[in-house]
């Protein structure tokens, strides 16, 4: 069922068993799972079915820490989208699960460790594959090579492990699942409905209702037995912190954790690699469209190989998780390459003199995990949006250890490339040229973002260390749950959407079980 919030009677109170706030990947997944489950579900989505500047402007905020992009001010509204389907409306579709090591407590990554193992998540990953429109739960080169869908001598020669990323051909959840929700008999989708406050019960133990406002001036409330906030890693803390009428620090913030531990995927074009190959040698690292037959259904997707470091190397060296791709090749003598990475000809001359004939100069891109850092945080400002909600400030920080880890990772990748006789790597992060020892301190090379907002309502078994428990329920509120990457305790180096969907499926199962 579809409802426009502007058509709800002013001052009315909508009633449901489950109220889902936000219709992005997590919210839509939960609503679909509860379709036909015997529960009345209300989905409150801020936007309509298309991009709208006024609604998008509700996202505006201030970045005071690391710039989200070193060259252009993308603002806090740039990396996300506020309409039905959420940020999947510009999702590139990349899917890869966390590794087993990513979820473990690692002494060399402060505050790491999920309250679950990969095996606990895998049943949900299996189902998430289907929701995301990709193939089987298979991410190894061996599997896809056996299927005849990815192969290359580079991969056969690899001593560094590779994984295969699956890229969905249907990443827009809003387009793919709109009809399902509109046709549902027990799910009511209310668009243009902005939740401005979670109201606690008199004893403060539960959420009793939410306040809803529209940009046209309508206001009403919604009550439910259970509330799920699925608004993304920046809006989750905003709503929790702004709902401070009964608890001055905001909801779930008894231990000053809401909004802290903000994590991004540091995403950097890290330098040039000379490869003793032709352009086809980059093929495994380039997303390649394939048609697969999975469970009797033909499906289009793309496959891309990525380089990882082996778990024993990560542990021995104490490194963050990372994902490396080799992209955008040029002939090694191309003047454009020299413009992009000055000094390319020095390495080219050296390896040629050594008898290696480099055919391609390519850009190395690294996506890295950062440590959960309490100083990296989202807070409220005095500025307010058109609906009266406080705007947020993001102070994104990465640590010196994060930066050292990235440099060390690049060096190890360079050694692997050389060891395999493929050429040489030059680390040049937008003008920061790696030196031994590092030439500058505090290693302030520019970093880019992956547009992934994580960790601001982190999951932990203890309320002293997490905002939500392993069921994604806010520790101090018995009927309030958080869905989405805000609950990630650590980020891994994989794109987050597949895991967001897996956790949403897990939460939906929990809600169904709890309701019976």
């Amino acid at each position: 069922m579809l409802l426009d919030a502007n058509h709800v009677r002013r001052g009315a109170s909508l009633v449901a068993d489950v109220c889902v706030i936000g219709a992005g990947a997590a919210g839509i997944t939960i609503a679909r799972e509860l379709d036909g489950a015997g529960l009345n579900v209300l989905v409150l989505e801020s936007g309509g079915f298309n991009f709208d500047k006024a609604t998008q402007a509700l996202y505006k905020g201030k970045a005071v820490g690391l710039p989200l992009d070193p060259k252009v001010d993308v603002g806090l509204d740039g990396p996300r989208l506020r309409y039905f389907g959420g940020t999947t409306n510009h999702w590139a579709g990349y899917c890869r699960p966390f590794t087993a090591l990513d979820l473990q407590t690692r002494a060399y990554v402060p505050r790491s460790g999920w309250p679950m193992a990969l095996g606990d998540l895998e049943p949900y990953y299996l189902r998430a594959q289907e929701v995301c429109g990709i193939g089987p739960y298979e991410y190894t080169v061996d599997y896809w090579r056996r299927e005849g869908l990815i192969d290359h001598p580079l991969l056969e020669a690899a001593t560094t492990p590779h994984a295969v990323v699956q890229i969905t051909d249907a990443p827009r959840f809003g387009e793919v699942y709109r009809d399902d929700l509109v046709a549902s008999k027990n799910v009511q989708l209310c668009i243009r409905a902005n939740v401005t406050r979670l109201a606690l019960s008199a004893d403060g133990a539960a959420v009793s209702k939410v306040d809803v406002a529209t940009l046209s001036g309508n206001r009403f409330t919604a009550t439910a037995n259970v509330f799920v906030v699925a608004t993304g890693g920046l809006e989750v803390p905003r709503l929790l912190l702004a709902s401070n009428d009964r608890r001055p620090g905001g909801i779930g913030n008894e231990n000053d954790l809401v909004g802290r531990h903000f994590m991004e995927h540091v995403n950097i074009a890290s330098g040039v690699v000379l490869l003793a190959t032709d352009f086809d040698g980059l093929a495994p690292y380039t997303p390649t469209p394939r048609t697969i037959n999975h469970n009797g259904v033909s499906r289009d997707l793309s496959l891309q190989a990525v380089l990882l470091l082996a778990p024993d190397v990560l542990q021995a060296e104490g490194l963050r998780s990372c994902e490396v791709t080799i992209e955008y090749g040029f002939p090694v003598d191309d003047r454009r390459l020299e413009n992009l990475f000055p000094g390319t000809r020095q390495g080219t001359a050296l390896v040629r003199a050594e008898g290696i004939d480099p055919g391609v100069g390519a850009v190395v891109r690294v996506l890295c995990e950062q440590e959960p850092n309490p100083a990296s945080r989202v807070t409220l400002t005095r500025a307010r949006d058109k609906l009266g909600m406080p705007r947020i400030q993001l102070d994104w920080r990465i640590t010196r250890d994060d930066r050292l880890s990235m440099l060390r990772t690049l060096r190890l990748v360079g050694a692997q490339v050389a060891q395999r006789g493929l050429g040489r790597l030059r680390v040049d992060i937008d003008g920061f040229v790696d030196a031994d020892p590092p030439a500058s301190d505090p290693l302030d090379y520019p970093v880019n973002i992956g547009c992934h907002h994580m960790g601001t309502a982190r999951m932990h078994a203890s309320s002293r260390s997490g905002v939500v428990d392993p069921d994604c329920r806010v520790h101090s509120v018995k009927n309030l749950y958080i869905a989405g990457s805000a609950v990630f305790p650590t980020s891994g180096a994989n794109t987050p959407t597949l895991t967001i969907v897996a956790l949403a499926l897990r939460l939906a199962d929990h809600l169904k079980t709890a309701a019976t």
Partner: protein
Amino acid sequence: MSNAKDVLRDQAAWGCPVGRRAFVGLAVAAGLGAHAMSRGSLSEAAAATPTRVAGQDPTTRRIAALGKAYLKLRPDEADKAFLLRNLPDVDTTRPVVVQLPALQRPIVDDFVAGRFVSVLGWQLAVTEARAAALVALGA
């Protein structure tokens, strides 16, 4: 074709209509010319590029630049005798540059053993960095 700055400006204005990975690609692919001009911290690489030396071909000059940078990192090794002692396969009667192919085995061994060094950003085996240093010293 729009350039990277336009694309990024559009992203800011319209809510990131292109995925981040595509952005990085566009930025890299579209910003090639402007990119280098906009950077202010290329001096290290530029400074290490030697001025044209009579009698040296471009290959030798570029390798010598790497060697010079290595010796800046390891001034204690700026000694032909030391370098030759550590490069036993090098024949002192022939130019080092032409002997580099014969060093592949120890170079790979270096990488396997973790004996590599970052020179002007290049991840080089210690053996080849020392060979380049010999070139810089005129060997």
